[in-house]
């Protein structure tokens, strides 16, 4: 069932992703934004602080900071402080390499921050094959430091072909460390597009993961896997794409997009150097089109009420058709496996 209040349009997003910089000290193979060096003309400190004030005025509840590595940005703590001074809750996605005891102590002074440390395997070799040498130990060190603080901390794992068989072990690792596990969907954007075929989970892996999720309600996924999750689990959250309805994305240079996985000219909703956030949220044609998006090709599917066509970003990246339905939804995984069996039986 859809949500009539969301469809009527909210006055601002509930939360948004703000990629504060493209600078990153790692070169992860699945990176959604191909982070490496800072983008030319990233928002400066004054522009970033002005945006925080705008988001506060519009009633945005939470900002999810990503990048790049947010802590690579010299003024990042200043931006965080500005959020917290206004009561805006924050969540930081970090690779953990720059987490120090001093930084943890500083972040602990507010009760408004949560941290997700990226870790892409329960085995060092699995994680390092995706994220690079030394990343496993750095992430574990960061997690151990954070667990000594009151900061709500989670491991964030992007499900790939290489780590799909380690998800249960990831959960055990999270439990040993005293943190929660959050699993995100791998999508073919940024460097992730270049490495899509190597890293994409197979339909059988996705199906197994879907069954595992149904048994593990304490594992968070955000809305990443709403096209894969069971009806029971969907009681934990919304069952539709929230892009331009509940959330959106701000790029390092102040461009606004429906979501972090659709940061291209085609999906540009506005430029914060030209228009206010409110003007963009209220008037963007791209946002209007997302709010009216109906995946008619999926309407006859028995699971339509559970996913409403799934993730438009995956549909766009794989089929160049935002209205085509999620190519990796649960139904399509089942069909794909059945087709493969038929082919193999015929052979």
């Amino acid at each position, binding site marked *: 069932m859809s949500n009539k*209040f969301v469809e009527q349009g909210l006055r601002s997003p509930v*939360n948004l992703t703000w990629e504060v910089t493209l600078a990153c000290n790692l070169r992860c193979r699945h990176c959604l934004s191909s982070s490496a060096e800072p983008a030319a003309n990233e928002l400066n400190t004054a522009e970033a602080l002005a945006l925080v004030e705008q988001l506060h005025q519009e009633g945005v509840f*939470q900002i999810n900071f990503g990048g790049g590595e947010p802590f690579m940005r010299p003024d990042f703590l200043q931006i965080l402080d500005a959020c917290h001074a206004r*009561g805006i*809750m924050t969540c930081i996605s970090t690779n953990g390499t720059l987490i120090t005891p001093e930084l943890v102590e500083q972040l602990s002074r507010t009760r408004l921050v949560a941290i997700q440390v990226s870790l892409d395997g329960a085995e060092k070799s699995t994680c390092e094959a995706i994220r690079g040498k030394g990343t496993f130990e750095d992430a574990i060190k960061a997690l151990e430091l954070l667990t000594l603080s009151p900061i709500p901390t989670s491991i964030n794992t992007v499900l790939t072909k290489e780590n799909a068989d380690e998800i249960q072990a990831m959960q055990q690792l999270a439990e040993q460390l005293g943190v929660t596990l959050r699993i995100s969907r791998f999508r073919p954007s940024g460097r992730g597009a270049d490495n899509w075929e190597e890293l994409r989970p197979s339909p059988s892996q996705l199906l197994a993961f879907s069954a595992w999720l149904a048994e593990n309600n304490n594992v968070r996924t955000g809305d990443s896997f709403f096209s894969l999750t069971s009806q029971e689990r969907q009681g934990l*959250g919304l069952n539709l794409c929230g892009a331009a309805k*509940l959330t959106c994305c701000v790029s390092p240079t102040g461009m606004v997009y429906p979501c972090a996985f659709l940061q291209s000219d085609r999906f540009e909703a506005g430029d914060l150097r030209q228009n206010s956030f409110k003007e963009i949220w209220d008037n963007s044609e791209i946002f209007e089109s997302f709010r009216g998006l109906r995946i008619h090709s999926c309407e006859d599917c028995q699971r339509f009420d559970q996913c409403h066509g799934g993730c438009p970003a995956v549909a766009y990246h794989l089929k160049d058709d935002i209205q085509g339905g999620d190519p990796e939804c649960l139904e399509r995984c089942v069909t794909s496996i059945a087709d493969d069996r038929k082919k193999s039986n015929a052979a």
Partner: protein
Amino acid sequence: MAAAGIKLHPACRVRRERFGLLFYDSRGPRLLFAETGSLLAPDYFESVRSRQDLPEGLSAQQKKVLQNFITKLLERGFLREQ
């Protein structure tokens, strides 16, 4: 000892929307859409107050609806007693 009051849970936020109030719980995260119209302002939940302390000018029926609503918010963890 002061009587227990209610207040928005620190992990939660609330804002006004056209339909009434939108509650956000960062622990889920989860949302609660409340069709309260203009009966309650978001800042009602910002300070500790008695459950009987409702805005003036409401009918008995409206007060009853709001008190039930506040009970529901408490049960769902959006408010807490302190």
